[in-house]
């Protein structure tokens, strides 16, 4: 296991350093062309340069995401008793800049559980940020965070529900794949790593996640953060 971890670490290091170098050159030199040679370039040439530069930035974001995902697999879990309500509050606080005034957020009862607070906060951040993104254009956007009644000693099922654009259930199997997206990035920006990270964190805790949605009606993500007895 230690060998495997070392290898992963070396891989991540190499990704972050060696893959970034050529991107940096592409982005840096196209920026110089755009900023210092613009008068000599036709409108079309400037546009193509912008495409080159935007794509190099996108590549850089994808690398950051891959690294985040690989780091998740490696760092040991720091488990303790957590109050999910506190994590939700902290996540909502972090997301304030993305939050439109007219999004109504409702937080229901969230029973405590055992887990790594930093990683589980990331679960709520990613799920809530998706909900904000996909419901933000509704005249009355609504996000609900809650849990199902716990039945005799079983792990709690938590959910994050929104009334956003939803998706077709026949694509649901793709939701948690790395860099999989169900919406065009021109319409809803993102690299498609958020839910893959959520799933990886929950799996490491022995939990699971599933989704229910309808186009135009919204989506509900339900999950457990502990092994189900």
């Amino acid at each position, binding site marked *: 296991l230690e060998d495997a971890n070392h290898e992963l670490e070396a891989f991540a290091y190499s990704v972050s*350093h060696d893959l970034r*170098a050529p991107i*940096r*050159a592409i*982005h*840096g030199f196209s920026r*110089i062309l755009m900023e210092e040679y613009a008068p000599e370039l036709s409108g079309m040439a400037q546009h193509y340069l912008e495409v080159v530069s935007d794509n190099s930035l996108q590549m850089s974001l994808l690398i950051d995401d891959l*690294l985040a995902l690989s780091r998740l697999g490696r760092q040991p879990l720091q488990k303790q008793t957590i109050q999910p309500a506190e994590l939700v509050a902290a996540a909502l606080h972090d997301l304030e800049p993305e939050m439109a005034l007219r999004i109504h957020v409702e937080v229901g009862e969230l029973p405590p559980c055992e887990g790594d607070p930093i990683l589980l906060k990331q679960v709520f951040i990613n799920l809530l940020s998706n909900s904000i993104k996909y419901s933000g254009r509704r005249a009355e956007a609504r996000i609900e965070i809650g849990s199902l009644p716990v039945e005799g000693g079983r792990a709690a099922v938590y959910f994050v529900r929104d009334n956003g654009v939803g998706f077709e259930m026949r694509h649901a199997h793709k939701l948690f794949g790395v860099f999989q997206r169900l919406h065009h990035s021109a319409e809803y920006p993102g690299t498609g790593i958020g839910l893959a990270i959520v799933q990886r964190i929950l799996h490491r805790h022995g939990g699971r996640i599933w989704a229910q949605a309808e186009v135009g009606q919204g989506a509900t993500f339900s999950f457990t953060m502990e092994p189900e007895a």
Partner: protein
Amino acid sequence: VNQAVDILLVEDNPSDAELTLHVLEGQRLGRRVKVVYDGAEALDLIFCTGAYANRDPHNLPKMLLLDLRLPKVDGLEVVRRAKADARTRAIPIVVFSSSLDDRDLKAARELGARSYVVKPVDFRQFAEAVRGALLLGKAASGKAQQ
């Protein structure tokens, strides 16, 4: 061999070196920049050994701009050796890395590097870091000559 050097840029990636030089020139910091491509040559230059054996040991660079990942001798080792020697200890060092996540950045700081810049370079932040270190380096070498 005895050319005066304000900034010693130690960078093995030619594109990165060219970009860095471009930024330095744009900020009017490009005069007297010397580029070397590995840690061994950087050490030779500051300690006047190897190809630089005939260099005047008082003619130190005013600052080092150092990539951490270098051929032959890596950046951390350059920081360690420069800071361990009384002759070169006062030279301010700014280190470069591709990633903020880099553990070596912290290590470089602990060894005495003055500041670090993460690539892709934020041109303005980078220029400020260089300017600050350069001022300090000039003050230090001025004191040494008195």
